[in-house]
């Protein structure tokens, strides 16, 4: 069994580890090590880390099911909030360095360019999830409603991948989007299997259709 103390320790370690990419960016900024195009570096890096944290958040449930390490669920909120943290930095670099806080110009860009539309939508959808991440909000919404709201993360992950895909299309270089896309697809398909396919198979097994003697026999033999 995992003790509460161990959980606290795991959470502290995860918190510090999750801040390391940010610390690296700050260090590189002040030591002139972001390369010739520092803004591009920051934008790409925060975008990458948003995707990493989205994948990590989505990996918690499959990992729990596969390993039985159910305490992992208690780290999930922090992972999700760090996805939001890096997404916020990513969005801020766009608003600041690309548009110099000109909201009108930014919105024009959002409407005009599909890859930005998609990324912006994903970011906006993350906001209610971050806002309702506290225990109090879970209670206030009720577990069921809270859960349906937080299923938005599947859409957000898909939009995030599409955003990355279209961005890389300029380089005609899809190796990374394919990798990220496969990871997210795998994590989502695992859910589809556990939540839809498996229950359906079980139901079929429990209620054999009339006239399917063969299958019934097979089941009985078991």
């Amino acid at each position, binding site marked *: 069994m995992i003790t509460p103390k161990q959980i606290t320790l795991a959470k502290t370690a995860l918190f510090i580890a999750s801040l390391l990419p940010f610390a690296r960016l700050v*260090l590189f900024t002040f*030591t*002139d*090590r972001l*390369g*010739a*195009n*520092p*803004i*591009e570096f920051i934008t790409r890096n925060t975008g990458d880390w948003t995707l990493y944290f989205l994948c990590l958040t989505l990996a918690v449930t499959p990992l729990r099911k596969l390993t039985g390490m159910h305490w992992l669920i208690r780290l999930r909120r922090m992972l999700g909030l760090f996805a939001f943290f890096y997404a916020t930095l990513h969005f801020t670099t766009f608003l600041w*360095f*690309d548009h*110099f806080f000109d909201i009108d110009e930014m919105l024009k*860009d959002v409407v*005009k*360019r*599909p*890859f930005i539309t998609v990324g912006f939508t994903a970011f906006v959808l993350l906001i209610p999830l971050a806002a309702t991440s506290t225990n109090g909000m879970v209670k206030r919404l009720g577990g069921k409603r809270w859960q349906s709201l937080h299923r938005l993360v599947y859409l957000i992950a898909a939009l995030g991948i599409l955003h990355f895909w*279209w*961005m890389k*299309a*300029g*380089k*005609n*270089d899809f*190796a990374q989007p394919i990798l990220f896309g496969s990871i997210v697809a795998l994590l989502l398909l695992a859910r589809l299997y556990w939540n839809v396919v498996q229950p359906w198979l079980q139901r079929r097994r429990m209620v054999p259709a009339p006239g399917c003697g063969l299958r019934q026999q097979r089941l009985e033999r078991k």
Partner: protein
Amino acid sequence: MLIKRNSNGIDIPFPSEITPRRVFESRRSFIQQMTLGSIAAAAAPQMLLQDAFAQTGQKLAAKQNTAFVVMDKPTSYKDATTYNNFYEFGTDKDDPAREAGTLRTRPWTVTIDGEVRKPVTLDIDSLLKLAPLEERIYRLRCVEGWSMVIPWIGYSFSEIIKRVEPTGNAKYVEFITLADKKQMPGLRSPVLEWPYVEGLRLDEANHPLTLLTLGMYGEVLPNQNGAPVRIVVPWKYGFKSAKSIVRIRFVKDQPKTAWNIAAPQEYGFYSNVNPEVDHPRWSQATERRIGEDGFLTRKRKTLMFNGYSDVASLYSGMDLKKFY
């Protein structure tokens, strides 16, 4: 340092006593790195190596042609040689500086043929001697929305045209670049059709601004910048300026160019710098000057034809939105 006083009574050091900017810059960054402590030290060897590599460049003498010098501040040598698009060596900007060491630039020949009266194959030494070398400082605008200012060394491509005498059939010039898997690790990736091919209309190629380029910053071209010979067309997006050229063909029909094949709706044959024609995925109205526009300044406005308005006459009567 001993400072002589000249006849006006003004202290002027001998030119030989002035530390070249690049040397003191690299010294400064060396000191910076050394003072950063342990974390920075981990990455320092690589940066020192890059600096050392950067300074092995062989000098190339050229007289500056002031008619082709923009007043913008030149980009630092380090930025211009470590932030490159040269897919034959990888798609990341820092790949070429790291990977292009394998490129063998000598011996090297360029075959010039097609619709010409005097086809010829020239080695790099003949190319260096074909016309007087000039230094020209050009703006370089990448289609991705960033720009640099680079002191190139070369001569107008029109010198080549004069030499080979195109026939009446020649309407376009096609630049074919090296594609050798042994030297270019990026060729394993199918991002583009290899070899990388670019092209110009004959009158564009004949424009005095179009530079057959053999050096930059007073040296022969570094490998990652397209050694040993490339073309530079400053009023077009950077990808039109083919690197490491091995063959130049004068042809009747518009050449099929690498980026145009890969994404025709995004990269047209002309690809003139044009703030009014957006790339489908981003605006071309502004650009970020590398080393200058950054955290505290807005991006600067992109100029029509990258500021080289002389070339407008090449396109009179053409709808540049259609022929992007």
